[in-house]
């Protein structure tokens, strides 16, 4: 198949030759590291607030985890927002990220975003996959110099002891073809599990980010499973209570997963969805056109309603994709159509006050 040829020799460049023999004398012979040498922790590095009652602790309760992250990022100056009130595939789609990442104005926000990935539904049978889940999203513009340290401190705040757990930043270049966006960063691993994505946005909606924003996305269910020590997402303790008072993730979401899986894969009305896609696309175009203040197209008055239609189109496309009614070649063209909307919305946003064009 069209996989690029592997250049088998490329890795060998890793061998760093001595330029001249002379330097060999420069390199002292060092003993091998003592692998069994244990590091003495200076203090407990898990920073869970000791004043919290057990049911509020981030390692005992799913909502406690969310509240701990809210408290942490609120303390760092973020506006703590509520989820966007539309169906989206990821926290990035929230206008607080997509649109606010564009333009020169500083911005710090944190929020939970319920995210829908219709294809990932497993009828509630898979312990790790959901078609509806929560992302915790943090966006900081411009990206602060100590963003990695802030992120690590947030892990401590939810109970991950950094002297006990192996946290790693592993290359992961992020790209969203539908949003016309890309950035460089990492997936953050905790003991081999990806718990977050960390991205320095370089481009959004086809525009260079100036300044660059830093985006952190925590997979809340995974993190909660990790800190609670639970193997199945439906077993997560949602409210931190025990006995009769305990509410699990399954109590809240299992039925929904079953119902939506049936809907996403078997029954979603594809004629309606195709029509909705067309409607959203044409409405977006209409609002974009009508939003320009005058013929000079220097100020836009309706960027956000237009962007809502772009979000709508993207979700409808995901549903159609899950129903398997979009062929491989069509798929690309749908993605391009959504991207065109996103780009036009980005251009409109840049011509608004929040996008950096003040009212005259």
């Amino acid at each position, binding site marked *: *198949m*069209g*996989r*690029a*040829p*592997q250049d*088998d020799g490329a*890795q060998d*460049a*890793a*061998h*760093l030759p*001595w*330029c*001249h023999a*002379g*330097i060999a004398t*420069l*390199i*002292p012979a*060092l003993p*091998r*590291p003592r*692998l069994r040498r*244990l*590091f003495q*922790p*200076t203090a407990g590095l898990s920073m869970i607030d000791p004043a919290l009652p057990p049911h509020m602790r981030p390692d005992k309760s799913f909502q406690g985890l969310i509240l701990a992250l809210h408290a942490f990022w609120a303390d760092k100056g973020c506006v703590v927002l509520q989820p966007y009130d539309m169906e989206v595939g990821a926290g990035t789609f929230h206008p607080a990220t997509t649109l606010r990442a564009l333009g*020169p104005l500083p911005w710090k926000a944190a929020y939970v975003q319920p995210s829908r990935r219709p294809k990932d539904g497993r009828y509630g049978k898979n*312990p*790790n996959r959901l078609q509806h889940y929560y992302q915790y999203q943090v966006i900081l513009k*411009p*990206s*602060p*110099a100590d963003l*990695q340290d802030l992120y690590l401190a947030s892990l401590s705040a939810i109970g991950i*002891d*950094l*002297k*006990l*757990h*192996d946290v*790693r*930043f*592993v*290359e992961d270049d992020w790209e969203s073809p539908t949003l016309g966006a890309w950035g*460089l*960063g*990492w997936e953050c691993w905790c*003991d*081999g*599990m990806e718990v977050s994505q960390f991205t*320095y946005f*370089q481009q959004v909606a086809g525009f260079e980010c100036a*300044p*660059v924003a*830093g985006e952190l996305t925590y997979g809340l269910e995974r993190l909660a499973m990790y800190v609670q020590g639970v*193997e199945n997402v439906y077993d997560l303790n949602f409210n931190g209570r025990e006995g009769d008072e305990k509410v699990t993730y399954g109590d809240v979401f299992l039925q929904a997963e079953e119902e939506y899986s049936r809907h996403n894969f078997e029954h979603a009305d594809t004629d309606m969805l195709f029509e909705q896609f067309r409607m959203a696309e044409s409405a977006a175009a209409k609002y974009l056109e009508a939003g320009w203040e005058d013929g000079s197209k220097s100020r836009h008055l309706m960027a956000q309603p237009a962007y809502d239609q772009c979000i709508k189109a993207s979700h409808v496309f995901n549903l159609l994709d899950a129903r398997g009614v979009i062929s*491989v*070649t069509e798929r690309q063209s749908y993605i391009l159509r959504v991207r065109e909307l996103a780009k036009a919305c980005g251009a409109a946003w840049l011509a608004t006050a929040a996008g950096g064009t003040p009212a005259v």
Partner: protein
Amino acid sequence: MPDLLLELFCEEIPARMQAGAAESLRKLVTDALVERGLVYEGAKAFVTPRRLALAVHGLPAQQPDTHEERKGPRVGAPQGAIDGFLKAAGLTSIDQASIESDPKKGEFYVARLHKHGRPTPDVVAEIVPAVIRAFPWPKSMRWGKGSTSPNALRWVRPLQSILCTFGPETEEPEVVAFEVDGLRSGDTTRGHRFLSDGTIRVRRLEDWMAKLEAAFVVVDRERRKDIILNDAKDLALAQGLELVEDAGLLDEISGLVEWPVVLMGSFDPAFLDVPDEVVRATIRANQKCFVLKDPATGRLANRFILVSNLAASDGGAAIIAGNERVIRARLSDAKFFWETDKKTNASVSLEDRLAKFGNVTFHEKLGSQLERIRRIAALAKTLAPLAGADPELAEQAALYAKSDLRTEVVGEFPEVQGLMGRYYADLEKLDPAIGLAAEEHYKPQGPTDRVPTAPVSVAVALADKLDTLTGFWAIDEKPTGSKDPYALRRAALGVVRIILENGLTVKLGDFAEPDLLSFFADRLKVHLREAGARHDLVDAVFALPGQDDLLLVVKRVEALGRFLATEDGKNLLAGTKRAANILRIEEKKDGVAYAGGVDVVLLHEPEERALADSIAALGPQIEQALVREDFEAAMALIAQLRAPVDAFFEKVTVNAEDPALRVNRLRLLADIRAATRSIADFERIEG
């Protein structure tokens, strides 16, 4: 002599870029030093996930002084010329120039310029910022407040600090002071992200290495690799197991840790129902862990080796437990995929499974995967007799070979494509040749990969590659320069190797257009050259018409090589070239091409008669030998021409005064050329 130490400390550098970056840093900085007259004794680059460093040993304290003489205009030249000279030489008055005289030119001005070399730190302070700004990262980024500027520094990830010191071993080195995008160079760095605190002040290389080692950073990549490999082997051995070595994985892991701590975890043995290759792919691709083999059975053990970046306060128990959880989840997925595929294959016919490929585009202009599979199957059937395979079986195998591409396991782990086909074919109890062909038909994947030898595998492997090549040739998507996105060179080399190593007689002209044929010829040349053959001999054979049977080409090249190593061969080559040279000149002069038509009546000298007789006698015999594909015999026959050719050139003057005689002799030379051309185009042979 002083040493230079440079460390660029940044957020985590992607593992795959580290080695290349270290080499680039070394080359860019040392080249720039040498270019400025600063010759050094040695240099070594270091790289970890968070730092890129360079030590240059034995640099002079300053650039050498330079002396330059610049000749100026003659004394008394117009003022404009004198002013221009002063400006170019950097002088303020003509008194600073001396006057010299020359018997031809008379008196003229000379400026003697003495330039003091600049202190090395000043030069370094100029070089390093430029290297940083233009560093060749495969992908780089902007960050932070500064990212609004169009000239913002780009780096692989945010650059956080720069250490740069210079000085002799015996003295306190100085900081080489410079600034890049607001970052000032200094003499401090930081240790391990979690195992050390605060900044570390560093003087020079030994100091840097030792202090970082104490701060839980092994700066030398090769040493990290050694530690990982040795500790992994030790841990395996202690359990009576064997490490499944994986150089690519080792490279990657060494770029993910500054302080490698090797640990062992385990998983439920029930997961070993899944094929070993899938278990390995799961653990390797997702978790970047090594797998272990039980030497008694040769199969995988339910253990894995993970490399952590942390000497944890609990000895690694939590880290192992965490990794085991993730691996359990991943293996559950893999097992689920495997079970699903088994069920699907048992309940859905191959025909129905293949139908799904109708919706998958292979290439926009080359139709769907289904169409492609059908083409390959038809071609495999045609090729089967050439490979000694049963045509029906080859067709069936070709239809089956790609069917694993839509399975769950291959969807998740593309690297086990083909192999899964064999597992599934075996489960379906198909003819073993079908499963084998599914596994082997992608082979060979490169110059060192194994070539399939089973007849059905050979037919399918050839058909797969030929279909790809002819398809992309038909839509004019040929490789250009370094661009070969469809790996067509590899496919063509695969065809060449399959044919040669299996000794197949395939007339490629039946399948490939002339341009593609010459692409095969190029691949063959590269292949033979790597095997030690002379490319000019390959050219000499390919210059003959109808050379599309690679096996015969190679046999002929080999026979030719042996012949040319003999005295007869060398001399005949020289004689033939001489004949061809004369012909080239005379044909140009006369405006005709000579071929045949020697008039025996005009053959006056005994040597030319002998030559003509030899050619006439040998010609048909050589032809017969060639028809029999007996190249040794053909060479032995052509060798008999050597003596008459030598004698001819010794005694006979080609450009005789009698025009009729001259033309006749040129025709005789043309006969020599023609006779040797039945063997190879001697004019293309070097020497």
